[in-house]
Each structure stands twice: as structure tokens, then as C-alpha cells.
């Protein structure tokens, strides 16, 4: 164990090497690829477990230029260890699950290669001891996310979604890079310990600007309002990928980043306020959008955005250990829900809730797993989500009552959309025509593992807080009762809403139906961004392309070429091979020289 504790860089090196090997032998590995790819996450779990009681750190000088150099190092503490465990467990479950889910896919080996690379990048992100390492991991997980969303690149929607995810998160990444530059200028280093140690000596304006820049990087990565638009589209990727990257790990990297750089945020109430406001808006808004979705994965996508909003709200009021606790439990139950939806899609051949129904009879294990995940998400005791969400709501309610109330409403909606999706998919009469079947054991075993996590992780709250070096907040019974009551009421509402396979939703009064479909479209935020941002930028690009680039710059270059050619053409005409013509020119030249000479000696 001490080897694992002292060499945490293995969590990067092993999956990176395996990913490279898999990529080199795309046709060679065949069915052994997933078992090879499984090694990386297992190393992450082992290192994480070995480092829970304190890890190691080290660094090398990198890119030295004169006196200044970037250091690249690792630093495994409680936070890293917890993240490594989360990444490792979820990635392992996802890889095993994918054996069945991706069976027979043309890109089978490529899929596991990228998953392995993702594991390497994500592990690198969480063990990095400086912002350089975090940023490198940050960009690499983004690249892997791009590759996996667009995994079925022949599908135009998938390619488009991959591009969109990449571009939108890039907005946040640009802000983060600016934040890094500000910190570098202010402190001359990007080492976390050095920066965080010198926060007190920096000007408050610098701290706030840097913190807000980092926050926006996190907002992009964690799909918070207003950069949330990429996550629903990212559902075009294979479902296990959504479970790993777009529910459990990568999107949680934003929360991790803020927790990692916490002293910056602690020193900047403004940045915390921005996080609180954005988190609350996101938590409530995404919950309302999740309710009317008809695509089972879109329900989960908006639910993920909403739950990440909960975490940001918790960060905003200073309760970062609570946010991490919710991150851990959310990773378990949301990965479970996503994998279950993958199992549903695999077994029923559709991801449209309206074409499902009654699946509990043909897919009993999947149904049980889904219900466990759903109850955990809704925050019903004693499942994981109850404890963490209760702590989040509790800490927010104390610090900012308005946000706390908004989160309680979001909890109510959470219960509603989970219950609705559950009834539509698993209860009632079978509506689809596809012959549904239970999934193979490689798919149900990971569901079982994650179900156990979703059932039991809630009780790990105090230990997680202890590992993070924070006090665990005692559960407030009154608030817990209120939250459970609201969630149950929401669940009841959602359950009734989904009666008769959603027929009730079709029979809304026009005014309600209008609100319903507006919410389903995410309040048209996408078209708003398209009209307000994408189209003007596209028009500007076209303008610079046609007028500035082709017109002015190419015009100058090509104009010079044309001038030279024209001059050459003129001179060519004198070179016609007529000797007398040449003689005439020589004579003319001589006469000119003669005249010049005469004029000069005059």
C-alpha cells in the first residue's frame, strides 16, 4: 500500500499507457480491450484508498525560462483521495457496463481507449498540485469528452453536439486561463500551496477577479447557467459515457476546482455570491426543464445540471465540504441512473419515455436499480441523496434564505420529475413495440455496485467531512422532515402527472401546454444564444472572411502578384526576338546616357 501512496502518479501513467496501447492496436485487442482498460480505474481506487489517511506530494520544474519556471507536481490529500475513489469506482462500473452496452460496435476498442485516456486525464486533474496540472487535466478531459460525445461521428447530431460541448466549455476555459494569468502575475507562481498561502497579501480586487475567472471555468465545465447548453446535447454520446463524464466526474470537476482553490473564494465574498446566484438559478431552472422532457436521458441531463447547481449554491455559502459530499453521493446515484437508463435503452430499444411503459415486468433488476437511484436523487431517507442534499439545503438556508427556499422548490421538482420518469418508463402498460429484455450480467453487476453506493454512501457523510478536515453538520430534524415532505409531495405530483402513460400531459389546457412546451425547450435559451451570440459571431466571421481576409489581405497579396505579372508582360513584349528592336533599345539607351553625361558635365 505504501507504494501506491508514494507513487500516486501511477494513476495517470497506467491508464495513459493502456489507452495508448489500445489506440495502437485498434484491430488487435478485440474483446480484451475493456479488461485492459479496467486496470486504470482500479489503480485509481487503490491509490485513493491508500491515500485517504494522508498521501504524498512531489514536483518537477518544467518550462524553465530564466528565473521563472512552471512547476508540475502532484499532491494527494483527502480531497484528491475522495475524488480518485469516485473517479475509479464510477469508471470501473462504466467500463464493465460498457462491455455489454457497446457489444458489437465498430469502435469497440477505440471506445475503451478513450475511456482509459479519460481516466488518466481526470486522475491527473485531481492529483495536480498546481494550476498548470489542473489546467492540463481540465483540457484533456474536455478533449476526451469531445471524442466520446462525438463517438458515433457518422451521426450529424453527435458531431454537432461534440463541437457544441467543446466550444461552450472553451468559453469557460478561456476565462480560467485568464484567471491563471492573473494569479501568475500577482504571485509569480501557479503552485496551489504558494498561491493559496499568499491570498492574504493580495489586493482584494485581484483575488476577486481571479476567483470569478476560475469560477467561470468551473461554470463552463459543470454546465451551470448560462453555459449549461452543451450538457443536454452531450447526451448524443453513448449512455455509459454520459454516466461517467457528464454526470459523475468531469462535470463535477468545476466543483472540485473551487473546492481546491477554496481560500481564494473564502477571501472573495463577491465571487461566492456569483456562485450562489448562478447555482440557485441553475438548480431551480434546470429542475423545471427536467420535468417535461420526453427523452429519458434529457431528464437525467437536466437533473445533473440541477444537482450541480445545488453544489454551486453550497459552494456559494462557503460549505465546500458539503458540496463535495453531495458531489460524491450524486456521482453514485446519477451514474447509477444513467447506467440504468442505458440498460433501459439497450433492453427496450428506445430512449423516448412515451414509448416505454411497464418495463418493470421485463427488466426487474434494472427497475429496482432505477428506483434506488431515483429515491436517492429525490432525497428520500435513508438513501445517499437525502443526507447530502439535506446538508446542502440546510447550509444554504442558514446563509441565504431566499436561495434556500429556491433549493427547496427545486427539491420538490426533483421528486416530481423522478417520479414522472419512473412511472412512464417502468409502470403502466407497455407502449413500445420492441421486445424488451433484461440486460446481461456485465450490465447488471455495475448497477448493483452503484446501487449499494447509492444506498449506503449517505452514512459516509461524517467520514468524508473528516477526511476533508471539516466538521460534519448535524442533521436538522425539522428541515429534514420539510425536505422529505416536499420531495414526497413532488413525487406524488409527478406520479399522478404520468398516469395513463403521459396521456394527461397531452390534455393540458392551452395556457398550461404553452408553459409546458416552453420549459421542455429549456425556455428557448438555446435559440436565444443562437440568435444573440452564435449568429452575430458567424456573420462577423463571414464578414472578416469575405471582406477582410479575402478582400483586403488576399487582395493586397494577389494585387502585388498581378502587378508583377503585368510588368513582366509589358517587358515580355520587348523581348520579341527582333534584333533590330534590341538595337533600337540599345541606341535609345545610349542616347539617354549621352544626354545625361552632357547635362552632368555642363
Amino acid at each position, binding site marked *: 500500500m505504501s507504494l501506491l501512496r508514494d507513487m500516486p502518479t501511477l494513476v495517470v501513467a497506467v491508464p495513459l499507457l493502456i489507452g495508448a496501447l489500445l489506440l495502437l492496436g485498434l484491430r488487435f485487442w478485440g474483446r480484451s480491450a475493456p479488461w485492459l482498460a479496467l486496470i486504470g480505474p482500479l489503480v485509481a481506487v487503490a491509490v485513493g484508498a491508500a491515500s485517504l489517511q494522508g498521501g504524498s506530494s512531489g514536483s518537477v520544474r518544467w518550462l524553465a525560462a530564466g528565473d521563472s519556471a512552471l512547476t508540475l507536481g502532484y499532491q494527494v490529500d483527502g480531497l484528491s483521495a475522495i475524488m480518485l475513489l469516485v473517479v475509479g469506482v464510477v469508471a470501473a462500473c462504466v467500463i464493465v457496463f460498457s462491455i455489454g452496452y457497446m457489444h458489437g460496435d465498430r469502435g469497440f476498442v477505440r471506445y475503451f481507449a478513450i475511456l482509459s485516456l479519460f481516466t488518466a486525464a481526470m486522475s491527473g486533474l485531481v492529483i495536480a498540485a498546481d494550476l498548470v496540472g489542473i489546467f492540463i487535466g481540465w483540457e484533456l478531459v474536455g478533449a476526451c469528452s469531445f471524442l466520446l460525445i462525438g463517438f458515433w461521428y457518422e451521426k450529424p447530431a453527435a458531431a454537432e453536439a461534440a463541437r457544441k460541448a467543446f466550444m461552450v466549455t472553451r468559453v469557460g476555459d478561456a476565462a480560467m486561463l485568464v484567471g491563471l494569468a492573473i494569479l501568475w502575475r500577482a504571485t509569480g507562481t501557479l503552485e496551489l500551496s504558494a498561491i493559496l498561502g499568499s491570498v492574504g497579501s493580495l489586493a482584494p480586487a485581484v483575488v476577486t477577479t481571479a476567483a470569478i475567472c476560475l469560477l467561470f471555468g468551473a461554470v463552463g465545465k459543470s454546465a451551470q447557467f448560462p453555459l449549461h447548453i452543451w450538457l443536454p446535447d452531450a447526451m448524443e454520446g453513448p449512455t455509459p459515457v454520459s454516466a461517467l463524464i457528464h454526470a459523475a466526474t468531469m462535470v463535477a470537476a468545476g466543483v472540485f476546482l473551487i473546492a481546491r482553490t477554496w481560500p481564494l473564494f473564502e477571501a472573495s465574498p463577491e465571487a461566492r455570491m456569483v456562485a450562489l446566484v448562478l447555482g440557485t438559478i441553475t438548480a431551480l431552472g434546470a429542475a423545471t426543464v427536467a420535468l417535461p422532457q420526453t427523452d429519458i436521458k434529457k431528464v437525467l441531463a437536466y437533473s445533473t445540471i440541477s444537482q450541480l447547481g445545488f453544489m454551486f449554491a453550497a459552494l456559494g455559502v462557503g460549505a465546500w465540504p458539503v458540496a463535495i459530499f453531495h458531489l460524491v453521493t450524486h456521482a453514485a446515484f446519477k451514474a447509477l441512473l444513467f447506467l440504468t437508463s442505458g440498460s433501459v435503452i439497450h433492453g427496450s430499444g428506445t430512449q423516448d419515455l412515451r414509448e416505454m411503459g411497464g418495463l418493470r415486468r421485463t427488466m426487474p433488476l434494472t427497475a429496482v436499480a432505477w428506483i434506488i437511484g431515483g429515491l436517492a436523487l429525490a432525497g428520500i431517507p435513508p438513501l445517499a441523496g437525502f443526507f447530502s442534499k439535506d446538508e446542502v439545503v440546510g447550509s444554504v438556508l442558514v446563509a441565504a434564505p431566499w436561495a434556500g427556499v429556491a433549493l427547496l422548490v427545486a427539491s420538490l421538482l426533483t421528486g416530481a420529475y423522478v417520479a414522472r420518469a419512473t412511472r412512464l418508463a417502468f409502470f403502466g402498460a407497455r407502449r413500445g413495440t420492441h421486445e424488451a429484455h433484461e440486460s446481461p450480467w456485465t450490465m447488471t453487476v455495475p448497477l448493483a455496485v452503484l446501487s449499494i453506493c447509492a444506498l449506503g454512501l449517505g452514512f459516509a457523510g461524517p467520514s468524508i467531512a473528516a477526511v476533508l478536515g471539516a466538521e460534519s453538520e448535524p442533521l436538522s430534524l425539522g428541515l429534514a422532515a420539510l425536505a422529505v415532505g416536499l420531495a414526497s409531495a413532488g413525487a406524488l405530483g409527478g406520479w399522478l402527472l404520468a398516469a395513463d402513460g403521459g396521456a394527461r400531459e397531452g390534455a393540458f389546457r392551452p395556457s398550461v401546454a404553452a408553459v409546458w412546451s416552453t420549459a421542455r425547450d429549456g425556455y428557448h435559451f438555446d435559440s436565444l444564444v443562437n440568435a444573440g451570440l452564435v449568429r452575430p459571431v458567424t456573420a462577423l466571421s463571414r464578414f472578416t472572411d469575405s471582406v477582410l481576409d479575402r478582400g483586403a489581405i488576399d487582395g493586397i497579396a494577389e494585387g502585388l502578384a498581378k502587378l508583377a505579372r503585368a510588368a513582366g508582360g509589358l517587358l515580355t513584349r520587348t523581348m520579341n*526576338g527582333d534584333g*533590330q528592336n534590341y*538595337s533600337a533599345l540599345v541606341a535609345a539607351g545610349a542616347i539617354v546616357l549621352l544626354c545625361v553625361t552632357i547635362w552632368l558635365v555642363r
Partner: protein
Amino acid sequence: MTPLALGCLLISIGLYGLLTRRDIVAVLASIEVMLGGAQLLLATYSAGVTQASAAQGITVIVLATVGAEAAVGLALLVALVRRNRTRTDQIEEVRG
């Protein structure tokens, strides 16, 4: 008429012939006339200089060169006549 004026006149006549005539024989003759004018100018100037022997030597050498040039020119002329090309605008392509 002074020798200087005569030299200039000869060069001018030769240049005029060189540029205007299309007949190769006439062009060659014009070149000879120009050379004659140049020689005359050289000899005339050398008469007023104390060390005239150098200029006169050059004049003699140029005379010999002119003879050689005429031989080469006429040989080319014969070759062109064999190909039935006796006008300057027929020999714009000097290849092959």
C-alpha cells in the same frame, strides 16, 4: 566638313540603316558604316593628343577585327540565304 562631323554623320547614317532596313545585307553594311565612323572619330581625337601611338594602334587592331567580323557575318549570311531567310524579321527565332 570637319572629320568630327563626318564621323558623327557616318555613325548616324549607319544607325539609321541598322534600325530601318530589313535586308540583312543592308544591316551588315550599316554596321560597317558605323564602325567606320567610330574609327574616324578615334583617329581624329588621337591626332590632338601627344601619345597618339596608342590610339592609332587601337585603330589598326579594330580594322583587323572589323575584317574578321565581316567574315563571320558573311558566313552567317550565307547560312541564312541557304535557308532562304534574308530578312531580319524572318530570323526572330535563333534556335535550331
